[in-house]
């Protein structure tokens, strides 16, 4: 048995599908953030795997995953600061209660 490119792309795709499902159905802001992390992670796997299988002499996909991981860290830190601030204001992180800024 040999490792093919599909064997890595299919789990990443299932991970991305789970992220979409959680992003739509979850009602908790932190759970939505967790789903977002799942989707970002699946895309990082795709970058690295395409780089390794199709262009093994270069490092572009690897660097893209590297910078995506850094961006995800920054985005998560800021989003969690916002979540804590929202919790301080309305004592809740349920998105159905956060209707104050809807027009």
């Amino acid at each position, binding site marked *: 048995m040999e490792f093919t490119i599909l064997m890595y792309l299919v*789990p990443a*795709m*299932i991970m991305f*599908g789970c992220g979409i499902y*959680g992003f739509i159905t979850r*009602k908790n802001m*932190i*759970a939505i953030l*967790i789903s977002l992390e799942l989707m970002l992670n699946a895309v990082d796997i795709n970058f690295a795997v395409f780089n390794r299988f199709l262009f*093994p002499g270069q490092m572009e996909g690897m660097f893209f995953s590297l910078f995506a991981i850094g961006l995800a860290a920054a985005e998560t830190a800021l989003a969690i600061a916002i979540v804590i601030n929202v919790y301080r204001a309305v004592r809740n992180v349920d998105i159905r209660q956060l209707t104050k800024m809807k027009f």
Partner: protein
Amino acid sequence: MESLGSIIAYFIIAIAIIVFSVLAVTSGKILRAATYLLFVLFATAGIYFQIGYEFLGAVQIAVYAGGIMVLFVFSILLTHKPGANAPRLENHKLWLGLSAAVLGAGVCLYSLFEYGSMMVSRMPDNFDINIHQIGQALLSTDKFGYLLPFEAISVLLLACIIGGVVIARKR
């Protein structure tokens, strides 16, 4: 032909990714969902190690498992009652999410299996990326150098730290 150990490792990683990512979005308790996300991130690092990107796997473990998960656990413990269950979903929302996920996955799977055969099927062997090359590429200004994005992301992280402090501070 791969060795038996790497095949077993691959199947453990793949099954862990599938099972734990499903559990992470369906689990009712939010702290458990975060723990399942941690397992998914570790399995992803396992994939990076297996295809030969040791540096990427180490960054994945250090940044995600070490940094982001701590943030998640802290914010969950700050904003939730321990052991609280998520309320049950409404039916139409569940079907909307399920159909969006399954439709997207179906389109991707169809195109993968329809057109994936023209990709290189096995992993190329000629592969030697060491940490020396990675460091040279990260800090060079040549054709395949990444100095500008490297500096841009460091400025972004600084802005993010300041933004986080400004947003979350007590007034």
